[in-house]
């Protein structure tokens, strides 16, 4: 799988690393030619765009070959956006199935025909045709939630399945061995997927219908690389979701009653609440992994402004008129100058370095006395009192204390002769 992936140079997006746990190796092989097209077609930022793209592919498929649907389907499956996109694909299938039944179109292309056209075109060309022939209907599909129903499976699942789609794939892979009525796992998957759509019952029924048709096709004609679902997509047409906002008028347009008096639309909070709910923030969607985390920084930001930059900044400041426009800017200026305290009040405003000084340097100052002061006598006695006072002083830095002691040292060395005369 990975070998084939790397061969395709058009894979630019970093979001392609297939890690669907339930897909088998042979299924993955066909993903490769499709991945490029997926990545190249559009950035997979929003689910709606992806959904529309999927629809593009699906509608064009209905006119063209069925090879594209297979690729598109594989493409959709492989997408690393994972659960959401696969679910959307599933939802696409379901909605398309539903709409297809609504429009009363029969599935035209059979999987037998699609097989013969295999490998005639590269994935790129096929998907280009796909996209070209598409009719785009962008709908706002809300984010697909994970399945709420408990999974009903006869066999124990070896790996945890993230999505309904993967469940579905797992079921399809294994169901080839069982040729009876619909697999209960399939049914479960279908109902889970259908539950995410607005018309869940209808969608579920349509999906199950499609599944039955799908199962009815003999196994020999069905390719293991998943043309199956692609065909389903191929027949589906894109439909428009019932627009809940069709009544929206521009702004607050004045409407008129019979008596001629106008009234503006009553703006409640419900509209805003809806907007708040459905708004997608950039942080809710899945990571695209386009850029490496921890991108390199500018050298300037790392090193800081150079001396030249500071000089230039000073020149600019002095040249332009820097008077503050209002009281806030005046206070800012004073704070920078130091005239105004910094709020919230910090008692140790100018003493940030002192926090790292250990306490023994503050308290045990005897070592400064040992050097140049006499060991006995009134001077020593006096200095010990000085040391005691400094040790108890909370408001001085170590530097200041040492300066005090140094000053006394110099003073007593100058007055040495006076001291000797006094002693004598």
């Amino acid at each position, binding site marked *: 799988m990975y070998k084939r992936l790397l061969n395709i140079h058009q894979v630019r997006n970093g979001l392609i690393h297939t890690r669907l746990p339930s897909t088998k190796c042979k299924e993955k092989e066909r993903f490769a030619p499709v991945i490029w097209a997926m990545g190249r077609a559009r950035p997979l930022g929003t689910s709606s765009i992806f959904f529309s793209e999927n629809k593009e592919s699906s509608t064009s498929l209905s006119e063209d070959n069925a090879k594209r649907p297979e690729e598109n389907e594989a493409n959709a499956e492989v997408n690393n956006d994972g659960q959401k996109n696969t679910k959307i694909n599933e939802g696409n299938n379901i909605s398309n199935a539903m709409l297809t039944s609504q429009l009363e179109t029969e599935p035209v292309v059979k999987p037998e025909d699609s097989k013969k056209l295999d490998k005639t075109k590269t994935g790129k060309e096929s998907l280009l045709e796909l996209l070209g022939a598409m009719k785009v209907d962008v709908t706002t599909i809300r984010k697909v939630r994970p399945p709420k129903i408990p999974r009903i499976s006869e066999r124990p699942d070896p790996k945890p399945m993230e999505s309904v789609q993967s469940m579905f794939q797992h079921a399809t892979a294994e169901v080839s061995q069982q040729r009876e009525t619909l697999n209960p796992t399939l049914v479960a998957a279908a109902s889970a997927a259908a539950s995410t759509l607005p018309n869940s019952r209808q969608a579920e029924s349509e999906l199950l219908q499609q599944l039955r048709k799908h199962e009815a096709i003999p196994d020999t004609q069905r390719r293991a690389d998943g043309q199956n679902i692609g065909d389903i997509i191929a027949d589906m047409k894109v439909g428009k979701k019932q627009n809940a906002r069709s009544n929206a008028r521009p702004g607050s347009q004045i409407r008129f009653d019979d008596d001629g008096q106008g009234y503006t639309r009553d703006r409640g909070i419900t509209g805003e609440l809806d907007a708040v709910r459905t708004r997608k923030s950039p942080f809710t969607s899945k990571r695209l992994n386009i850029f490496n985390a921890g991108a390199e920084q500018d050298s300037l930001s790392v090193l800081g*402004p150079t001396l030249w*930059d*500071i*000089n*230039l*900044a*000073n*020149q*600019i*400041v*002095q*040249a*332009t*008129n*820097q008077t503050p426009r209002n009281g806030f800017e005046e206070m800012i*200026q004073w704070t*920078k*100058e*130091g005239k105004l305290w910094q709020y919230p009040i910090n008692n140790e405003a100018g003493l940030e370095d002192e926090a790292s000084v250990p306490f023994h340097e503050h308290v045990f100052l005897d070592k400064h006395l040992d050097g140049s002061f006499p060991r006995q006598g*009134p*001077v020593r*006695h*006096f200095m010990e*009192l*000085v040391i005691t006072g400094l040790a108890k002083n909370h408001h001085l830095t170590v530097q200041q204390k040492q*300066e*005090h002691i140094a*000053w*006394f040292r110099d*003073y007593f060395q100058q*007055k040495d002769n*006076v*001291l000797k*005369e*006094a*002693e004598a």
Partner: protein
Amino acid sequence: MAAAWKFLGTGMGFLQSSLPVSRQAYRSSLGVVEQVRSYYVNWRMLRDVKRRQMAFEYADTRLRINAIRKNTILPKELQEIADKEIAALPRDSCPVRIRNRCVMTSRPRGVKRRWRLSRIVFRHLADHSQMSGIQRSMW
């Protein structure tokens, strides 16, 4: 350092936005100390400001010499010498000469220490509700 800091905050913003330099308010380049002329209320206020600055400069020296003078352990000869030394310091360096004047009017008397204002200015501002947390009391 503080002066450089004062320029840096506003200057770097301009540096990055690359505003054109206006010629009207052109001042001398960096390195020449400007004479900043501001206005105090009167000369007495200015002298008081000078005394405060000088007292700040000599505070440590005065403290140390006074520590020698005001103890009973050191010999008296030393203390006399210390007396003379402290008397030789400039007269404005002693903190006793500082007068807490009103900041607005330079009034030497009737100044409340907390606000540094004389009673008249305080009343004026408080009545115009420009003193935060001050209201007319009645009880």
